[in-house]
């Protein structure tokens, strides 16, 4: 009991005694947490980003002049059963009129007295495909219908985005793992540097008859305190930057960054504690043969 109090007190005193190395140590952990945290948010938003981009995939189908609105409704009900189709919006003659007006600034009815624009529909694709979307089968499926006149789609854009979808996920995984390895590495190094100047203390304690845990204790507590400080700092940094850029990005692109404060804090905390613990333990053990 007395030993525990002593070890705890020593740990906290050390944070203060080694102020300047504490700053370095906290800062290293802080930087690592910032990087890891950012990656966490990016990866949490990857799916949302993909969905955001896929939201823009649209297939426009124009029907022949002779096709009635009723028939279009039947046809679109058919289309819905095509694999990969999510929803369909019918653009009636009236809607087309409105589009014409916005496009050409003129009212087609007042020009012609009647509406010559064809009925069309916009097909929205399912967004949650597990892998890349291939729209070719959908298109060829649509072409089979006699009533279909023309099909417009941004096939190139879609395949460009989809090309990157899979490799993007892979890259994310690689970057996150590298960052974590680097995190353990840099923290263990900083602690090693700190401990280097305390070799004498460790040796003395051992010669006096201190057990391993008695020697390690204060260092690990010191490391944990550094980790906690870094967690708090990096958490507020990340949230601050997020809050700012969230509105900025939403304003420009209508893309709404998703994040969960509690989850971010938990990840940062467990990361800093885990990595800090492993780091200090590794570093001290070197001097404790």
């Amino acid at each position, binding site marked *: 009991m007395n030993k525990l109090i002593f070890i705890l007190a020593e740990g906290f005193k050390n944070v203060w005694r080694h102020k300047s190395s504490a700053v370095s140590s906290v800062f290293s952990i802080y930087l690592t947490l910032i990087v890891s945290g950012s990656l966490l948010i990016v990866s949490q938003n990857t799916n949302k980003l993909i969905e955001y981009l896929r939201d823009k995939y649209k297939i426009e189908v124009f029907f022949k002049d002779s096709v009635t609105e009723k028939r279009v409704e039947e046809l679109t009900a058919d289309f819905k059963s095509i694999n990969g189709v999510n929803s369909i919006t019918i653009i009636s003659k009236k809607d087309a009129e409105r589009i014409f007006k916005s496009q050409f600034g003129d009212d087609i009815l007042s020009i012609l007295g009647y509406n010559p624009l064809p009925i069309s529909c916009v097909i929205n694709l399912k967004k949650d495909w597990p892998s890349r979307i291939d729209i070719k089968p959908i298109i060829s499926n649509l072409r089979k219908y006699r009533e279909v006149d023309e099909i417009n789609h941004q096939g190139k854009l879609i395949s460009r985005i989809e090309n990157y979808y899979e490799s993007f996920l892979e890259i994310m995984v690689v970057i996150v793992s590298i960052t974590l390895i680097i995190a353990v590495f840099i923290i263990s190094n900083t602690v090693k540097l700190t401990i280097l100047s305390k070799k004498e203390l460790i040796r003395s*304690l*051992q010669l006096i008859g201190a057990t391993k845990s008695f020697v390690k204790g204060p260092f690990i507590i010191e490391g944990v305190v550094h980790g906690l400080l870094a967690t708090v700092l990096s958490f507020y940094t990340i949230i601050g930057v997020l809050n700012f850029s969230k509105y900025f990005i939403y304003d420009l692109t209508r893309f709404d960054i998703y994040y969960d404060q509690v989850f971010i804090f938990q990840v940062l905390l467990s990361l800093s504690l885990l990595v800090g613990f492993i780091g200090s333990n590794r570093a001290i053990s070197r001097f404790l043969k």
Partner: protein
Amino acid sequence: MINIDNVSYSYKKGGGVSNINLTIQDGEFVFLIGPTGSGKTTILKLLYMDLFPKAGKITIDKFDSQSIKKRKIPYLRRRVGVIFQHYHLLEDRNLFENIALPLHVLGYDKEEVVELVNESIDEIGLSGKESHYPHELSGGEQQRACIARALIKDPEIILADEPTGNLDPVASFELIKLLEQISKEGTSILMASHNYNLIKSRGHRIVEMQNGSVRQ
């Protein structure tokens, strides 16, 4: 009881000790003399198990060098008070904290620590210097602090390596008398020293080293 049974040790770069035999009974006071580099410090290091014999066996109470487990070494060291040749006072702790450290290792509570340490500082004549850091003490004062640190936990065995090197003749004489008194209470003491004038004719056993061996 300390028993050194035909022990040899050699450093990687050469030097060391060979075929040492020595038994020290409880309450016995033994001096270890010999020229520089003859192996005195090496024997003491073997005794507090900072080094392990390449051959032979060392027994200290119930611990022996052949069967002791690494994590048991701290418990051996808690029974042994060592005065090192190069003091090993901690530079970033003051006199009080340095002397208190062995008590914290043993888990004494705060009041006991304060009482024992103050008493001990008084005894070595350094009261008023509790808050001095090692570099703020004179050579002899540092050496006395090391002595106090070794003795504060009432060890069953005392190993002293040249403890009077920086002490004036009066202080050296007082140290010997103090150690003699402690040894009378049953503590075994092995003390390495160059100060032959100080130790001769006090009636204690003197073991002489030469070139890594005990001279008979």
